[in-house]
């Protein structure tokens, strides 16, 4: 089982959700997050009012999937989140050792 984590632009989250729904992913978690990568922060100036924006707002998406679904999910997120401009985000994949559905106690792929 894999945990796929993606950091995407806030305005792409609807497309990402849609794309994942289209390929049959039936559960995901999103979190509003802030951070920086290559995009870095910037300074917002508003008539003398100045804000140092150190962290750029993004949305984190997490999806737990079986081994054979992983690539499809990665492709779907990549396609839906891409605008070609700076700050499109990242996707990374980690091994999920165990998954448990708390309500039923199911374990492993059954719990996905």
């Amino acid at each position: 089982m894999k945990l796929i984590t993606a950091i995407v632009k806030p305005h792409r989250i609807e497309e990402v959700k849609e794309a994942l729904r289209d390929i049959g992913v039936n559960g995901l978690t999103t979190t509003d997050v802030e951070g920086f990568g290559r995009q870095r922060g910037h300074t917002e100036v508003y008539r003398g009012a100045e804000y140092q924006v150190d962290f750029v707002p993004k949305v984190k998406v997490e999806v737990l999937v079986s081994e054979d679904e992983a690539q499809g999910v990665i492709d779907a997120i990549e396609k839906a989140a891409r605008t070609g401009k700076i700050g499109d985000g990242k996707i990374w994949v980690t091994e999920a050792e165990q998954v448990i559905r708390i309500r039923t106690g199911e374990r492993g792929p059954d719990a996905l």
Partner: protein
Amino acid sequence: MSVGEAPAGAPAPIARLKDELASLERAYSPGHHGLWSARRRSELVDAALIELYDAATSTWDRAPRTALVALGGYGRGALSPHSDVDLLLLHDGAETAAVAALTEQLLYPLWDAGFTVGHAVRTPAETVQLAAERLDAATATLDGRLLAGDADLLAAAIDPVLTRLRDDVDGFAERLANDARDRRERFGSTAYLLEPELKEGGGGLRDIHAFGWLQTVRDRPLEDDGVLRAAERDQLAAAEEFLTRVRSALHLESGRRTDRLLREQQDDIADAMGFRDETRLIAADGLMRAIFEHARVVDALTEDVIIGRRHPERAPDPVKLSNAGDALALIADAAEHVRPLSPAELDAVEAIASSAELEWSDAIRDAFLRILRAGAGASDGLHALDRTGLLVQLIPEWVDVRCRPQRDPYHRYTVDVHLLRAFDRTSRALSAPDTDDPLEVVTAGHIRERDGALLGALLHDIGKNGEGGHVAVGDRLAATILARMDVEGPTGELARFMVAEHLLLPDTATRRDLGDDDLILDVAARVETPERLAALYLLAKADALATGPSAWTPWRQTLIRELVAKVQRVFERGEMGVEVAERLADAIDMVRELLVGEPPPEVERFVLRMPRSYFLSVPPEQIARHYSTIEPDLGRHDVRTSSRPGSRLDTYELLVVAADRPGLLSWIAGALSLAGLSILTAQVFTTEDGVAADLFEVQGAFEPIVGEERWREFRGVLRKAIEGRVSLEHRMTEKRRHYPERSDTPVTVAVDNDASDFFTVIEVGAPDRVGLLYDITRTLSDMELDVHLAKVATYTDRVIDAFYVRDSVGRKLEDAQQTAKVESAMRARLEG
């Protein structure tokens, strides 16, 4: 308390008590066990305990001095179905073994039968000592009621406690106030939380009991010296009855003692209490609204009397008000002086509120606006309007949002409390902006129509009346309300705008691409003025802060501020404003009219795809002619062109449409030059979906009439260039050799990063010559700069070009080294 079968072998009184409690439970439906039922339950328990006590003590040769005392709620003679039975066994300290035996004989049967018993075994001295230390012990003792045994013993416990408390009434009142504050901290409000604590919460049953204790210690009815009004006593009684019913229903439904009403229990309890779904209010919301209405009264009275320590008035001056205008003026005065209304004033205002239907008048409106403007006292003024019933009289639409719960993960308050809090936040932002938020300071300064901003904040969610689609409903209701108030002109307009558009900033900021220049222009076109933008920002912030602790996150703030800053700069640069917005809307309408024969969905798609600058700079008739060239879907290698005679003699208008890619503009410029066509002006646009629509005014370089042959040559070269089958660079170098340059006027290059939030603007001035535009654009594409928008103009022998560019990943060129490189490359190429 516990109902059900008594265990086998239970003493007769307990077995009988179980039977009687079971029949009491059956006598009413679970939603109708109010104070009467609580009293009856208490009496039944009394009877059983007295019997047990008598039986235990009758067998003794020499009975020790004891008294069996009911405490707390049981002491007051009110037991909810699963309330604890709080008992105190007083003794004189002499015969501890016998007392222990008696305790066992009383408690074991109760425990065995499943009752939850709170018990204490103490001497009167110990009781007095404990009451001195702890407020809850003191108040429990005040509620003490003799069930059986030695009355003198009880008096020995209660009298010193009472005497001590009466010696320092103020001290006791202060302890009650502190307790009320602490409970509000710990349990939250019963008056608006969606899962309220019925007993300990602010506005709950414990608050009502506090009035009883205060009265006991003061030793005369609270009404006697004006601490409580007669009407308020009735309100407390009604609230106690209703909250007791809900609490009893909760005990019966859940089968245990619990005082927090959870969401999942609300449907069942609403049903048990007889609430039914209404058109715009589900039964559970009806239940919650009723709880909130009662608890709000209790909460307000507790704030006034217990926490605010309302002062006794020995002979209250009667307050005379002759009409609603007077009543509002009185509240406005109090709000301006940040003082609460006295009991006599409340009586007078309530008399007006209930006397007749109110009609808005100039006097009422002026006083109402004075309340809104009162700054620190404004909220108190609105609460006074609410509690006296004036608010719903003045704004009948308020009834539907008053005490209406909001069932979503974010909202913490009822709709009306949310509105009042958002109003309060806006009012404070206007009078004393938060210096930690520079944007708030600046925007607050932009608001000239303060009344409008205050009204907009107060009414922004007035559409949450259960109809659905609250923004549209709110817009309609706000129009009615403002007309009724006779608040017209700019004030009314700003208020209505805020109600109709209060979601514009948060929705756009969190869901749309703030790097899209047209999106920012569209928002600016909708907002039109910096004042309205400022009002929407202050409202967005107030709205979030009044929703709950988690709504105004740094995440949200960053996005909303970025949007506001970008829209503001669009205003400052004059790219959008009232006039531009009007011109844009007119131009688009005209285009729609001219394209009336085309399928409307495709026309709309066209309007959305094309940049705003296109509609602002190209005449509608020309746009209508472009439609058939631009609109159809375009393949990766497709090139579409259309040409026709231009507006000036011997000029031609040329449109080239192709998928945008780096270098495209230079290929077109090169192909035109190779085909013997000179470029007089050019405008480059890029659609939202990455299609370049480049518009040229050209003329023949060698002959005034441009024949089909030259157009064909142009298209051929361009196609080959796009497909990579020809080196334009080579052919242009070759061509340029034959046309030596004529002028030596200087080349100017300026890089401007302030003109746009989205692009770096590169301005190039150079003497006109063959292939100039090709050279300039080729330089840009060599540096991997993407031209999004361009304006090219020729003035007798001199060309001034402006290019709006971004790098390959969509960034401006903010690095000084990078811009210097562009400048020097441009000069090198143009100066040769």
